[in-house]
């Protein structure tokens, strides 16, 4: 049970970032290599609002989300929009540049020392035989609600259909009266909000350090690839799946004989993804018709 709870904690974090990535890369088909930095921006902004400016948590978190969305919007206007119509790989270069700029800015503004949004120990309680803190429960519930809410919106409503239409064919969608450019911006801003939510999650559950950005996006890439590109549900489910696998790998006494060394925790999960993709290249939830 403890492993399941741990998987949910780690999975919620991974799913938030994977959701952000699924939107820009999976849906829009644009690379945003600065997404990991936007995660940090969200986390650090919330830390600043709560610990320096003294706002309560319920105001600090929305403020952090808005900051994340804002930075994502600026990223889109300045670093992506002028380039991505020319060649879809151009933002790859421009957002790498942005990620370096943001790395430097974060170091300058928030220093190298680790920061925690909610410092100190959390009171844990026993729930079905596993230990969990109320903060973690709220984080898990909050993540599930916004992610599944959005996945529902995206896959099962008229608004979602519009977004998907724009993704499939810009001009065709516009000829049907859909405002494609503003939807692109919306997708990008939303991805920033999800990423910022992930950063806030880290800042509350663990702590923030300026070098965190790159490693956390790797698992997100794995999740959206395994989940099937363009499939929002798939990305979320796979993020949870990978996280759960990672916990199970180190937490279980395999066949009552041996433990897998903790150093292999991440490797084993990614290995699983590779094996899976060899068997089903379109991803776990991907279908041929959708991967246009």
């Amino acid at each position, binding site marked *: 049970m*403890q*492993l399941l709870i*741990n*998987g949910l*904690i*780690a999975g919620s974090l991974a799913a938030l970032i994977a959701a952000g990535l699924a939107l820009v890369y999976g849906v829009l088909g644009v690379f945003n290599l600065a997404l990991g930095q936007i995660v940090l921006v969200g986390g650090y902004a919330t830390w600043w609002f709560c610990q320096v400016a003294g706002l309560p948590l319920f105001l600090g978190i929305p403020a952090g989300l808005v900051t994340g969305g804002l930075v994502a919007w600026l990223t889109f206007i300045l670093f992506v929009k002028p380039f991505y119509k020319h060649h879809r790989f151009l933002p790859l270069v421009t957002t790498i540049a942005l990620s370096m700029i943001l790395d430097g800015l974060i170091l300058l503004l928030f220093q190298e*020392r*680790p*920061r*925690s949004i909610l*410092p*100190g*120990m*959390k009171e*844990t309680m026993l729930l079905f035989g596993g*230990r969990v*803190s109320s903060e973690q429960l709220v984080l898990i519930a909050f993540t599930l609600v916004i992610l599944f809410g959005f996945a529902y919106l995206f896959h099962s409503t008229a608004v979602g259909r519009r977004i998907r239409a724009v993704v499939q064919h810009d001009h065709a969608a516009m000829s049907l009266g859909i405002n494609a450019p503003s939807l692109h911006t919306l997708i990008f801003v939303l991805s920033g909000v999800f990423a910022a939510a992930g950063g806030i999650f880290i800042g509350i559950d*663990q*702590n923030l*350090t300026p*070098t*965190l950005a790159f*490693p956390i996006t790797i698992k997100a890439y794995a999740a959206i690839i395994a989940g099937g590109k363009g499939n929002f549900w798939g990305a979320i489910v796979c993020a949870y799946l990978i996280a759960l696998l*990672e*916990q*199970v790998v*180190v*937490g279980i*006494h395999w066949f009552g004989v041996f*433990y897998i*060394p*903790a*150093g292999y*925790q*991440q490797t084993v999960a990614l290995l699983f993804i590779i094996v899976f993709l060899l068997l089903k290249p379109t991803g776990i939830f991907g279908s041929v018709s959708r991967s246009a």
Partner: protein
Amino acid sequence: MLEKEPMKIGYIGPLTGDASAYGVDTLNAVKMKVEEVNAAGGIGGRQVQLVAEDGRCTGGDAANAARKLIDIDKVVAIIGGQCSSETLGAAPIAEAAGIVQVSPVSSSPDVADAGDFIFRTYPSDALKGIDIAEYFGEKGYTKVAIMTENTDYCVGIRDSIKAALPEGAEVVFDELTEPGVKDFRSLITRLEDMEFDVFVPNAQSDAVLGAMAQQMREQGFEQPMVSQDIADSNNLPSIAGEAVEGMRMFNVSSLLGEEARTEGARPFAEKFRELHGDPQQNMGFAVLAYDAAGVLLEAIAAVGTEGTAIRDYLYGLQAYEGAAGTFRFDAKGEVVGIGNVQKRFENGKIVEGVVTEETVEETGTGADTDVTE
């Protein structure tokens, strides 16, 4: 005429880049010593001239710096490097040229075997593991759980603890974790069916160490924690809160240089602050650089400028009365006398010094059991 020519001493340290704070502090301290010696008339009537080179905290730059100091400046001896990579990079060159090199603050265990002419005034990292293991013996801890971040430094500490464990003690839990990972919850669940007396969070950064300590306590484990110098960080209470309360760690004293060594003299730290303000990194590094320069200049004053003579003098030295403490060198050029002290978190502050039995009861064991409720 030749008698009046200044005698050159080289300095290597990181004067630019991320580690430049070490460089600035140690160079300032070395300058202080040289100026004092010169004000007192120099060595044998000759003034001492310091030639500083930037080692940029890398082996390659330090090697170039050593080459320049030895071949072009013709220095008598070298103080440096500061980063272990610098000391190790410069060592083969100094060794081949027969020039004594004294590193003030390098801690890598590899420095011990870097060469015959290589000395240091900072205790090797290997000592930390030995001190930690000794402490286990004192407290009667026999079952040790260690969680190690997979980096050279942390693995080195783990290995030295394991090698030095007292008779009858064993490591019952020994796991390496991916560098930078901060989620140990599932790994910690393994400890539930296990008996252990003490937990060693052995991480490369305080961010990771804080996560280890916090998640242990959150899972309800109340065993005491003992760690190395990464835990000697004032950031820990602000990220892990009361989880680190009562944790012990072994590191070089942060009070080095703060107290006068001889009756009536001014403490080194006071003189340093007067000339250079507060140290950029820490006073301990500055005072050890001051002493490294001091012991070297004393050797030169005693036996002259010949490399082998200086080396033999340093090996034969019984005791040098430095500003940081009284020390000598062992057969490998390792400092003896400057060691680690035990520190602990008490009410969110780092406290060091001799612990009386009474305070152990109040702050040590007491705090450990209070943490989780």
